[in-house]
């Protein structure tokens, strides 16, 4: 392994240890009722993963997140690219997108439920509305930011449109687009979870909501631990791709 990979591995381990220590300290201060200890949580998480009751929920959520993400990207990416490429449209749409990004989507939750009814459709819709906006915004900015000099270079090289897109536009815009995909995934995941918390009988969000209702901290924390582990793993993998595409520049969070 390269020295840098070793160092980042050690850093990651260090971070995990520090977090665990802080967690344990907090637990000792506030007690079991408020915060289960890290060790108990880990055990509970392992038990959950072994339990046959958990996996149907996980599958339900996983399916919902996947559908929501595909929709978010399928809608957000082309819209973002088009808005970035066509200057006037981008100018018209930008404040709208910024406003949409800042809206507390949970306020729209009742609307979604009323329009889609209870069930998978509502969950997916909720997840989608969380993810679609950042995907679009990042894609738009990535395409906009393409230096005009690249387009002029393409004209000098007399590239036809498809070659232009493939060999210049996409490579130039992909790093920014991937950042949007990464942020969009995190938000879609959280959005879908929130969507599952009400008016659902299945899914990890439902399990969470039940546990929150009775202050079952052990379940809350063990489920969250599993969720965070999955989300972070996906995020780190995407981050690696993001970093490589940016050739060393710091990616946005």
């Amino acid at each position, binding site marked *: 392994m390269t020295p840098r990979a070793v160092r980042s591995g050690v850093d990651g381990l260090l971070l995990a240890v520090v977090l665990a220590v802080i967690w344990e300290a907090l637990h000792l201060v506030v007690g079991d009722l408020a915060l289960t200890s890290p060790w108990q949580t880990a055990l509970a998480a392992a038990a959950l993963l072994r339990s046959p009751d958990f996996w149907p929920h996980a599958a339900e959520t996983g399916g919902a997140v996947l559908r929501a993400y595909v929709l978010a990207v399928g809608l957000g990416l082309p819209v973002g690219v088009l808005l970035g490429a066509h200057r006037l449209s981008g100018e018209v749409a930008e404040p709208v997108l*910024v406003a949409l990004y800042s809206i507390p989507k949970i306020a729209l939750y009742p609307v979604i439920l009323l329009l889609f009814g209870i069930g998978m459709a509502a969950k997916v819709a909720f997840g989608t509305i969380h993810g679609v906006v950042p995907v679009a915004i990042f894609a738009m900015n990535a395409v906009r930011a393409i230096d005009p000099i690249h387009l002029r270079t393409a004209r000098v090289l007399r590239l036809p449109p498809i070659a232009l897109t493939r060999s210049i536009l996409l490579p130039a815009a992909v790093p920014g687009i991937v950042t949007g995909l990464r942020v969009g995934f995190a938000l879609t995941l959280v959005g879908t979870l929130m969507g599952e918390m009400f008016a659902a009988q299945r899914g990890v969000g439902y399990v969470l909501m039940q546990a929150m209702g009775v202050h079952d901290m052990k379940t809350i924390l063990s489920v969250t631990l599993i969720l965070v582990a999955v989300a972070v793993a996906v*995020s780190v993998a995407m981050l690696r791709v993001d970093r490589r595409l940016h050739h060393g520049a710091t990616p946005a969070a």
Partner: protein
Amino acid sequence: MSRAGWIRLGAIGALVAAVEALCRAGIVSPLRLLPPSAMVLGLGPLLTSATMLAQVARTLADVGIALALAVMVGFVVGAVLSALPRVRAVVEPLLVSYYAVPVFVFYPFFIVVLGLNRYPRIAIGFLLAVVAMIVSTLNGFDRVPPVLLKTARVLRLSRVETVRRVILPHAVLYVSTGLKLAVAYAFIGVIAAEFIMSGDGIGYEIAFAFNNFDNRTLYPLILLVLLVSSSLTLALHAWERRYVARQTTQEAR
């Protein structure tokens, strides 16, 4: 207003008119979606009702506190991290994956620790907003061009003066992005917390209206939330364009 502004107004107007038509024609049932005109009219009784206004004020106050805390703490932490690169390297993956964590699950924890009052909600809003602030602060400090630091040395500024008169003003220019996000996230966090598990604030009122099938109250409330959060964000966006934009070149932004 610019040409883009007119187009935007026209497009939104057309959309609203279309929804209005669909509702009035009975294609979309009022049990699902209230016509936009009714939503707007419903704002009147809302804004004149003392109890409602009190709830709005409560939510805004909570958002304000969460935001103020997030901005101050976020800036300081960001500044400190930028001065300690080793620590920063360890913490960075946490910052980047942070938004994949469903922060709202810690609400019960905060209730146990802080009590059944407004502080858990503020805590959630704070937690969501603070990382956006930290990341954009780091960005601001990162981007101080070496030539400005050299200029500070040529002008024989002490370390403290360099931080105060060169690094800080420069970082502040780039912090406006984080500020926008912090506002949005503070809103999202507080309202989500209110919605999920609270007896107070607009989020709670929305949940209450929804559970009681009270569309006539529900939709105007949702509209109110959308209007408040959008106008705040857009006001910040406009301020950034006017004041910050004239201080930063296109490449730097």
